[in-house]
């Protein structure tokens, strides 16, 4: 779990102020800040840094999924930077563990609703743990790709292109009834994202990743090759490899 921020110590301490009593604590390794701070501080954010961050993010989520843990709350403020170069996934407060009852499992949206995938916002809740929880993480990874190049999460990008009458707060129908409109808006959002990326090779690779990771239909999300090889549909292994390759090419200056 080297790409996940985990507690290095935990315990409890008695506070002699007559107010708090005993306080439980967790101590985590100290980060520089989250990705927003790094993007803001860096004089010029190198493409190589962004791609390496995405590689680390995908790796962290892959590590969690390998342990049957779904994060469910991935967003810019939950991706921490260490030593300027290493990124890790943080804050497992909304996480779900397969087969283990977790505090936020009963909620329609376990994590931050403003970054939630569209199906959850439209109250489409799949009872299958993987299709609901891991698919949500998959979407969040793709959404972070979009955030780095567009300054917006994928949900904001979709809603930007979706006619107001189809927005989730006012939609009275079901998700399957509005899905074609959401998909149409998604197509426009992906094109806008693509136009924000320079370089043909990078554009094509990231376009493919975002299209697969953020598909508005959770049943279709994920790398298509996973379905052929029999791997878990929501396995991020291929994206870990893909982002790693892109990062390496950018680091040695051969990415076009």
């Amino acid at each position, binding site marked *: 779990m080297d790409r996940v921020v985990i507690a290095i110590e935990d315990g409890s301490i008695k506070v002699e102020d007559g107010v708090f009593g005993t306080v439980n604590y967790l101590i985590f390794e100290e980060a520089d800040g989250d990705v927003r701070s790094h993007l803001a501080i860096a004089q010029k954010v190198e493409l190589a840094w962004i791609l390496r961050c995405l590689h680390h993010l995908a790796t962290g989520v892959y590590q969690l999924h390998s342990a049957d843990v779904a994060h469910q709350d991935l967003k810019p403020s939950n991706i921490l930077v260490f030593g300027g170069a290493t990124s890790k996934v943080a804050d497992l407060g909304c996480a779900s563990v397969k087969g283990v009852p977790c505090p936020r499992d009963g909620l329609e949206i376990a994590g931050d609703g403003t970054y939630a995938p569209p199906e959850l916002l439209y109250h489409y809740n799949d009872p299958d743990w993987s299709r609901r929880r891991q698919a949500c993480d998959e979407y969040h990874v793709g959404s972070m790709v979009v955030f780095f190049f567009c300054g917006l999460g994928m949900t904001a990008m979709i809603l930007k292109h979706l006619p107001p*009458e189809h927005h989730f707060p006012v939609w009275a129908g079901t998700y399957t009834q509005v899905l074609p409109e959401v998909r149409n808006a998604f197509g426009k959002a992906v094109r806008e994202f693509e136009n924000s990326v320079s370089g043909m090779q990078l554009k094509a690779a990231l376009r493919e990743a975002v299209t697969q990771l953020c598909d508005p239909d959770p049943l279709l999300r994920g790398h298509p090759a996973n379905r052929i090889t029999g791997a878990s549909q929501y396995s991020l292994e291929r994206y870990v490899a893909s982002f790693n390759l892109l990062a390496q090419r950018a680091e040695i200056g051969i990415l076009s």
Partner: protein
Amino acid sequence: MVPRWRDHKTTLALRELSNAKAKSPISADDTAALAQRASEWHNNTTIWHAADLLSSAYVVGVPDHYMDAIDFILAHPEGAPAPLVDLAKKAAIPVERELADVHQVDEEEEIRRRIHNARARLRDEPRNAILWVELSRMYMLVGESIRALRSMEVAAQLGADSRVVVRSAARLFLHERDSSRALQVIRRASGAKTDPWLLAAEIAVASASNSPPLLAKAGRLRNDDTNLSEFERTELSSALATLELESGKDRKARQLFRRSLSAPNENSVAQVEWANRQIGGLEIQGNLFHVPRSFEASAQICLSNGEWRRAIEYGENWLRDQPFSKSPATFTSYVSSLIEEYKRSIGILRTSLKLNPGDSLLINNLAFALASSGDVNEATKILRGTDYKKSTGTRAITLSATHGLVFFRAGMPELGRELPTCNRKGYRLR
């Protein structure tokens, strides 16, 4: 009352795709998340913190609560990604959606260019049902009905529950004389029994194809639902009214038609205008002015009032609005011929025949206009191969009359006079 089929943008602008409920309040969790993000933004005045805040605020519909973040982004566009700046502009000054005026149908070259672009987009978005519907419509505009049907079948598979896909598909299948497929696509939609727009479509398509509507009862129940807005029920009321009219229940029909006029759309206004000509007692003129695209009703009223030129003007707009529908073409060409403006009539009919090949009424009207304008040879060519035996009722009479006209103009008055006999003998123009 069959559903209209327009481009997606126009259909949205006509408000026919909403399925509204009272806006859900922002959840306590989202409110807390926004408060956290706003605090972080105030402590870190950077583009990326502003971006995170605006992205979240936009999703829950309150970007205007954070104008300082929006202003900051707009003041520093050089440091912000273009989509972020674009969203900030949109949030700062929301733009009202406008209904475009009808325009002349694009030249075939332009439509083919758009078809090419749509197909390119579909390579990247093969599951985009809305785009398949748009592609189908463009194929219809260039007369490629087989491709249009194929595209629509894909759309119907991908968007079987989507109102716009289902109504467009039903319209196309009905146009292509496959009413059973049209009814099937409506009845299989998950919202068929509850969506007033789909209920109206089922009743109308069944009526148009002389089949019994299976959802009339569900439609009546839904029409009585007080949760439905007057606009949402306009086509449903009108469709139910038409059923009553067809059953001879004029009083009930008038009640329902009047209800449909509470908040009408163009389709229901046109239907009420038609009904008024059948049973009377339905005043609609005052209702027309605020109803967008009410060209059909306006055209018919002008015709009834003897205002030929205005009727033609509305007819042409009706045709631009519904380019592959036969009705505006037959109407406008008919009125043009009435005032002997045959050139216009011929142009309209030729175009419509490209989109509706072999239609006997269009052929008849074209032959009439050609013969009346003196182009007997062309009229003969157009009528060649038409056979009275294949027509029945008024269409047979109309065709036979036009044949007669052509015989007269061709200098064969004896044959023209004998036309009823020729009809019995199955005489055909060669």
